[in-house]
């Protein structure tokens, strides 16, 4: 590979290697697809890993029902273009079945609820491995996770009982009922993902690029105004030019004021940014250990 690449190509070699280990070691793997840039990168890596064959596992999307419409449109277009198999499971169904309870109040979000829908889908399809786009640079509990992360019967993660992971030998042996969460782009940073997107010419949902939308300001963050966000009378929506650094549930993903409307502009913006990517994710701000606690109960 040319040395002029800014993206560290060793990371791509590693990710493809991990994808192939999943396909070989497990009987029923799935790729967790959210429509965000990290899972779009995973799909691209999977296509490369198995070319000229089709991706040998389905994409699983846990739809919170509070997604940005742009994300869903992009997802469907990607599936049509790549011929990937898509499975969608809905948080609304888990609510209707009485398995989870919708949060109430100003900070209500369905982010926590999707764990139950995910675990149900794993059980329904008997998935033994779920590939996710999590990166260790995102959050300090994530920084501790192995590439093959063994989860118990309840999808739970026990940080103290992680298997040693030596050289590139990945041990995916599990007991019936357990599953493994696999993170092929663990060692990538936000900037690595963007440089890869640039060099590989990947398409992304329009949300990542600067656009005008109706927002409200709360606690110094800019929230996308939608029917799902509960606002107080003093929170008056206004139009602003923004973009999103992460794409999650509409109720927990804040926008950043930005004029960056190309991948190059975004890369320059990240290089100058003083706030981390997940600094605008309310799900992480609930407590110092919010991510670890979610992972203990099965969050990906």
């Amino acid at each position, binding site marked *: 590979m040319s040395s002029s690449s800014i993206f560290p190509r060793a990371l791509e070699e590693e990710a493809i290697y991990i994808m192939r280990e999943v396909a*070989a070691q497990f009987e029923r793997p799935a790729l967790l697809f959210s429509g965000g840039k990290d899972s779009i990168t995973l799909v691209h890596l999977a296509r490369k890993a*198995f070319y000229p064959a089709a991706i040998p596992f389905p994409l699983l999307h846990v739809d919170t029902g509070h997604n940005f419409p742009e994300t869903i449109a992009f997802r469907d277009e990607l599936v049509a273009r790549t011929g990937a198999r898509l499975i969608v499971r809905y948080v609304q169904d888990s609510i209707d079945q009485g398995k989870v309870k919708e949060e109430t109040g100003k900070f209500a979000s369905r982010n926590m609820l999707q764990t139950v829908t995910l675990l149900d889908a794993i059980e329904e399809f008997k998935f033994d491995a779920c590939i996710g786009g999590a990166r260790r640079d995102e959050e*300090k509990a994530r920084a501790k996770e192995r590439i093959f992360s063994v989860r118990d019967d309840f999808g739970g993660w026990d940080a103290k009982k992680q298997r040693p992971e030596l050289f590139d030998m990945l041990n995916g042996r599990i007991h019936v009922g357990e599953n493994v969460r696999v993170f092929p782009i663990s060692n990538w940073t936000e900037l690595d993902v963007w440089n890869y997107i640039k060099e590989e010419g990947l398409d992304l949902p329009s949300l990542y690029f600067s656009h005008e939308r109706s927002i409200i300001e709360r606690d110094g963050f800019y929230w996308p105004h939608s029917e799902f966000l509960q606002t107080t009378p003093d929170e008056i929506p206004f139009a602003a030019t923004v973009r999103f650094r992460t794409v999650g549930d509409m109720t927990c993903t804040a926008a950043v004021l930005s004029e960056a409307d190309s991948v190059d502009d975004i890369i320059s913006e990240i290089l100058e940014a003083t706030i981390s990517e997940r600094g605008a994710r309310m799900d992480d701000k609930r407590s110092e250990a919010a991510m670890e606690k979610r992972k203990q109960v099965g969050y990906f």
Partner: protein
Amino acid sequence: MEVLRIATAGSVDDGKSTLIGRLLYDTRSIADDRLEAISQASKRKGLDFTDLSLLTDGLIAEREQGITIDVAHIYFSTPTRKYIIADTPGHVEYTRNMITGASNAQASIVLIDARNGVVEQTRRHLYIASLLRMKDVIVCVNKMDLVSFETSAFNAIRVEVLGLADQLGIDRSTLHFIPVAAKGGDNVVTAGSDNMPWYKGPSLLALLESLQPGKGLTDLPLRFPVQYVIRPHQDAFHDFRGYAGKIASGSWSVGDSVVVLPSARTATISGLFKGTEAVSSASAGESITVTLAEDVDVSRGNMLVRQDQGGYPEVSNFTARIAWMDEHEMKEGKTFLLQHAQQVVKVKVLGVEEVLDIHTFQRAEEKKSFHLNDIGTIRLKSAKPLFLDRYADNPANGAFILIDEFSNNTVAVGFVS
């Protein structure tokens, strides 16, 4: 852009997490919101300074106890390279996690508290560095501020470590020594600390920038373990049968003659693919797919080698140095699954040749079984031939793991001797 992977090692409280925090802080790699979060957390703990170790101790149990339990991976970049730091625990109980972090690193930073000098953990870390044949070992003598920045404290430690290295057969040229005060930042990112005018060497960051990345694996004989067989079953690629994998060592080109192990059948490379593109050659570290001109039987776990390089690795009875990583004791006669590259084979421990006394680096006379974190040598017999090289000859193809058949846990790492 190149990637340099580093592992830290040290004893509890000698300031590893603080050193990494300092490296990130002084290279402006910490976002404001994260800095604010740890500054608030430091205040809540009643500290009068920002505790940079809070950046990496990401688990509840770690913050509770103020120690590092598991490896944290930390990233930062300079204009020329990307760094991946495995910040590993120092507590003896978590030695296995330290080896986990170190196994993927090409350089190791060993921290020593200037007040305490060489301690048991230092010996253990140096032993592991020698076991892994680490290319560069950077000894950071930390907390120099607490010994009044005295050159004598630094020199005494340096002399002692060099002595240990000689004992372990570590080449002195792989060792680097830097006196630092991580809390204040002396010699971490910028050299020429006013507190230590006697030190004329580079800062830690400058030294890291000067290390040569890469392990020189391309110059070794070709080892290609087959990971996955690609059969598209599509009209456009009706007869396509590709063997996917990551080249462990060496290089090859289209047209080369190869030997398939264990069948020893020969074949010719008809195509090499990187992702969706055909390439004419490929080398160590690349994830590729290869097609062969002849219709030979190849499956996952097989290994392809080049016919012109001879000397095919194949063993079924061998000795290896191992680091034992399980809570349960390991005795002679036990069976395990051995995983080497993509091959998994049943093995039996024929004998325990030695268990090491970490204080003396000599055989512990009375020991014939391994307990958690023990290091030593065993003799193994495998049910089927393995395509292993000696670790000293080819580190990319000379290591393996042992898996407990009942718990499924990875219980040891081994190095063929």
